[in-house]
């Protein structure tokens, strides 16, 4: 088992190494070393800056957000805002992005480089690598033609008369023709390049064509870089699956906790934090969370990305206690539960320091309490599910009534 784990981790390191090489070849700078990725998974603090910069560099290169200031000149907090804005543009909505103060959480919510790792995973999944690659190839390959904008004369409304159809046929034929011409031009270019290359090879001894050889050397360098880039991409694609499996484990880590919390400046756990997190949630979530909240909720952790919360809710039935104390305590569940719970949390509060031993001790020594907590959690979960189902039913009937009152509309339930 041990050996398998070790080999597994070695493989992961190699895979992450492939990713780093690819990012570097694509012109992203700076790229953290693979070891730092592993550390980031466990929420280390030292690598955070590197990942901020990595995200900033990627977002800048893919021009998701435009910035007049270069990455190196940007200050740390400015960079964080830039990264948050860029991630939001790509559709990533994590709670830490909505904090008023740059990067630091309010109300005891924790943040670590793992969040940045998740954000990186999101960007990769959204096709950012391919964008970076395309850009870099366009920079390096001088023989690529810029696509000439073709004025198609297509009107906004599609007309299906014969003239438009004929024109469409004509356009198709013309495109095919142009494609063939481009192909033949490419072949001709290859032939000429070959001729130039063989000519320069034969006259390698004479330095008379020194000028042309400089140009040739530059071209060679570009071609070499191109080849490296494409090789890096190929090797990445071959091992990509392993990376995503590892990223899965990062997500699991993130959802289960225990997250090493940042020492926050105030313990003012405001319900406002909860509402921040409700941005963009579905209606049932809203309704559930909009129910009257108990005043003093000590909410140490918010679930990071929205999808994490969704996952948790869905998994509520299947898995045990993954939701974690904070989620439940912020809800107006069974009153007695929250009281008991709150007591437990208050007991745990002084343990909020990044020391693994303390976390262990909170669960180890008073075993009774832990199992009790589990029981209570399960119970609360059942109640919540019941409440949710009732709510859903109410929603559905309400919707059906609404649709029924509208003419010519039929509701087809999913």
């Amino acid at each position, binding site marked *: 088992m041990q050996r398998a784990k070790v080999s597994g981790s070695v493989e992961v390191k190699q895979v992450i190494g492939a990713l780093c090489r690819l990012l570097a070849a694509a012109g992203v700078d700076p790229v953290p070393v693979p070891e730092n990725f592993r550390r980031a998974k466990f929420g280390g603090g030292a690598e955070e800056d590197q990942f901020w910069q990595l995200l900033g560099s990627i977002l800048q290169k893919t021009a998701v957000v435009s910035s007049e200031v270069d990455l190196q000149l940007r200050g740390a907090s400015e960079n964080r805002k830039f990264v948050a804005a860029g991630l939001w543009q790509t559709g990533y909505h994590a709670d830490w992005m909505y904090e008023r103060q740059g990067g630091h959480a309010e109300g005891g919510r924790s943040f670590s480089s793992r969040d940045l790792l998740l954000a990186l995973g999101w960007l990769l999944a959204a096709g950012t690598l391919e964008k970076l690659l395309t850009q870099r190839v366009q920079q390096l390959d001088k023989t690529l033609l810029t696509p000439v904008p073709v004025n198609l004369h297509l009107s906004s409304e599609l007309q299906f008369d*014969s*003239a*438009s159809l*004929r*024109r469409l*046929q*004509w356009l198709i*034929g*013309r495109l095919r*023709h142009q494609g*063939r*011409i481009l*192909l*033949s*031009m490419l*072949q*001709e270019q290859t*032939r000429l390049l070959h001729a130039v290359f063989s000519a320069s090879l034969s006259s390698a001894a004479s330095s008379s064509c020194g000028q042309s050889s400089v140009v040739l050397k530059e071209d060679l360098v570009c071609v070499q870089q191109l080849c490296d880039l494409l090789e890096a991409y190929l090797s990445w694609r071959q091992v990509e699956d392993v990376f995503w499996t590892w990223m899965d484990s990062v997500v699991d880590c993130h959802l289960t906790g225990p997250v090493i919390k940042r020492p926050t400046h105030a313990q003012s756990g405001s319900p406002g934090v909860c509402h921040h997190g409700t941005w963009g949630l579905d209606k049932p979530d809203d309704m559930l969370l909009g129910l009257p909240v108990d005043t003093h909720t000590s909410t140490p952790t918010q679930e990071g990305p929205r999808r994490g919360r969704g996952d948790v809710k869905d998994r509520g039935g299947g898995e045990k206690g993954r939701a974690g104390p904070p989620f439940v305590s912020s809800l107006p569940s069974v009153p007695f539960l929250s009281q008991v719970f709150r007591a437990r949390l208050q007991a745990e509060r002084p343990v909020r320091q990044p020391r693994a031993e303390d976390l262990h001790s909170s669960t180890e020594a008073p075993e009774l309490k832990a199992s009790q907590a589990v029981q209570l959690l399960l119970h609360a979960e059942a109640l919540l599910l019941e409440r949710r189902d009732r709510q859903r039913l109410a929603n559905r009937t309400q919707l059906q009534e609404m649709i029924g009152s509208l003419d010519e509309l039929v509701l087809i339930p999913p």
Partner: protein
Amino acid sequence: MSVVTVQLGQCGNQVAHELLDVVWSDAQKKPSRAASCERFFHHNTHGELVARAVLIDMEPKVINQSLSRAAKCGRWRYGEDSHFSQKQGSGNNWANGYCVHGPRHRDVVEELVRREVERCDRLAGLLAMMSVAGGTGSGVGAYVTQCLRDIYPTSFILNHLTWPYRTGEVIVQNYNSVLTLAHLYQLSDAILVHENDTAHRICSQLLNIKHISFSDVNKVIAHQLGSVLQPALTADSHGVYSRNPLGIDWQVRPPAGSGRSTSLTGSSFNTSLANLLILRGKDVYSAETGGFEDPALYTSWLSSKEAFSLWKSPVSFNKYEKSATLVSNSQALLSPLDDMVGKAWNMFASRAYIHQYMKYGISEEDFLDSFTSLEQVISSYRQLC
């Protein structure tokens, strides 16, 4: 960039020979010599100029004549193994050519073409030359075009067709023509048509030849074809002779007619899909060609800029001080085509000679399909406005 000429049947071989002659003689002492020679010829190990051509016929007579004539002239020659012939001919029967001779000799023909193609540094395209009236050129030609299309899907294939005299001597020429055209329409990138009648008229009225032979007609055809295929300065060639000969902008694949015209006459012009004007010789740069850009000449859904191309070359062609060639994709060919299909249909309606075709494997369905597709072409062209 080279063009491999595939010469099919009696007419195809004769016309192609004339074409190569014209190209060669025109290329001498010219700055574009290297480009045009490389297009159609290559140098063998003895330093001789050898045509990039494959000669195919089902009877040996014409090929032997071509080979010996080329060898004798001492200027260029055909490759020694670049020909294929049989003994019995096709009997002016399209079905015989397409269903029997074509498949039977497919491998040999493909091998010959492949050898020529591999000898090319860069293949620009294939030029298949044939007539539509006979059996070999039309039937074997259609079959070979199909094979070539399969083997070289990204190459240009230009079919040069010689249409027979309307009052020709082959009784089933209309059947052969209809079947050939219907098949080539799906396969070819461009079909360039010469009518014997038109070439004959040029010989008699413009060249004042008294006793017109096929050789004269072929020379006229070759001259016109040569003026299209010789290097010219196109819009984007930037002063260098383009090595790509087939940048002709024919989009929809219709038959195209060619004729010589340097003057415009009134409004009796057919509507065109596309026109290509090639000017060679003196004063090309001062030639006034605005008339060709008149939008009234072209169909409504194409602007004249898209439809009209102009190629120029200050180098004179074939000893003509000034020459102009118009390659036109227009309704000009509508009436001959309609005529031909009409005659073929009349014969088919009474099933005349159909058994000759059916015995080689063509069914009435195939005939009907060919008629249908040509009728569609005719109606499309008729509706051009």
